[in-house]
């Protein structure tokens, strides 16, 4: 005669982890695709100004950045607290901008050279004197497409 066995102490089955790698891989690919490596290590600190009429910078390979802001705390002793310009990984003088732009442009493909955009990432507290100097240097180097990096303003 069949006997229905009833275990009073039923054990909970172990969690099935066979799909765990799939989930992790999915997450991995998500983060891989959205990641953009930091281009440079910033030596200046800045908060972007705000604006409303923003356009996205399309091709990252065609964009070069000029950072303007006060040196971060570890460089403050050496460079003071005045606004400074950073090109690539180093502090730069405004006179170096022209050479930098020309070098970067000649490294690009010929058909892309006219499409180069310079993004000015400056702190919102910066005085316009330094920005105007940068603009004059860019004009002289024929880098006429510029973009003032800013964040979207939500309200006044």
């Amino acid at each position, binding site marked *: 005669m069949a006997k229905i066995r009833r275990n009073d102490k039923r054990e909970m089955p172990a969690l099935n*982890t066979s799909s*765990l*790698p799939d989930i*992790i*891989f999915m*997450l*991995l690919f998500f*983060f*891989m695709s*959205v*990641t*953009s*490596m*930091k281009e440079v290590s910033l030596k200046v600190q800045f908060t972007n*100004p*705000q*604006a*409303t*009429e*923003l*356009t*996205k*910078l399309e091709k*990252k390979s065609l*964009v070069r950045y000029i950072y303007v802001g006060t040196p971060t705390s570890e460089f403050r002793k050496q460079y003071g607290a005045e606004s400074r310009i950073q090109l690539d990984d180093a502090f730069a003088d405004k006179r170096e901008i022209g050479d930098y732009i020309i070098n970067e442009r000649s490294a690009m493909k010929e058909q892309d050279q006219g499409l180069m*955009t310079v*993004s*000015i990432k*400056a*702190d*919102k*507290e*910066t*005085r*316009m*004197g330094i*920005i*105007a100097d940068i*603009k*004059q240097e*860019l*004009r*002289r180097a*024929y*880098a*006429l*497409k*510029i*973009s*003032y*990096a*800013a*964040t*979207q303003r939500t309200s*006044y």
Partner: protein
Amino acid sequence: MADISFLLLIFFLVTTSMDVNQGLARRLPAPIPPDQKVEDTDINKRNLMVVKINSMNQLMVQGQLMDVKQLREEAKKFIKNENDDTWYPKLFEEDFGAPFGVLKYTKEHVISVQNDVDTQYQAYLNVQNELVAAYNELRDECARKYFHTAYNDLDEDTQKRIQKIYPQKISEAEPKNYGGN
């Protein structure tokens, strides 16, 4: 397997920065060749709108103190000159082809932005932003009137034709010291 992918996952998690690069796109004027003399181009006074920002970030438009929030409307009035006022830019008639037909527009208007060396970057950008916004709004109004869609949804050729009606003319002088410390 899962361990390795966990490791990679954590690596990408840490290095991820999801910042979007956006900004106010502008175009600088071409440099003046050194052998060319700087000519003072004579612009009729009515065609010129002077926007000055001083070192205290105060705004002066056509000789009057103004808040930056009013600048957009003022610029739109100036660019359009709907009532053919004599203190706004001169209107020109031109045939823009279908569907625009013959339109009056202020062909020679110039908005001149002058800032001080000590002007704050944010204040300067606010002014630039409002002026660009004025043009964008005018173009959008035009697109809605003739094509019943937003300006941004039009194809590039049509956008260029609208740009001809509202050409963006923002001139920037070299910064000078206008009083104040």
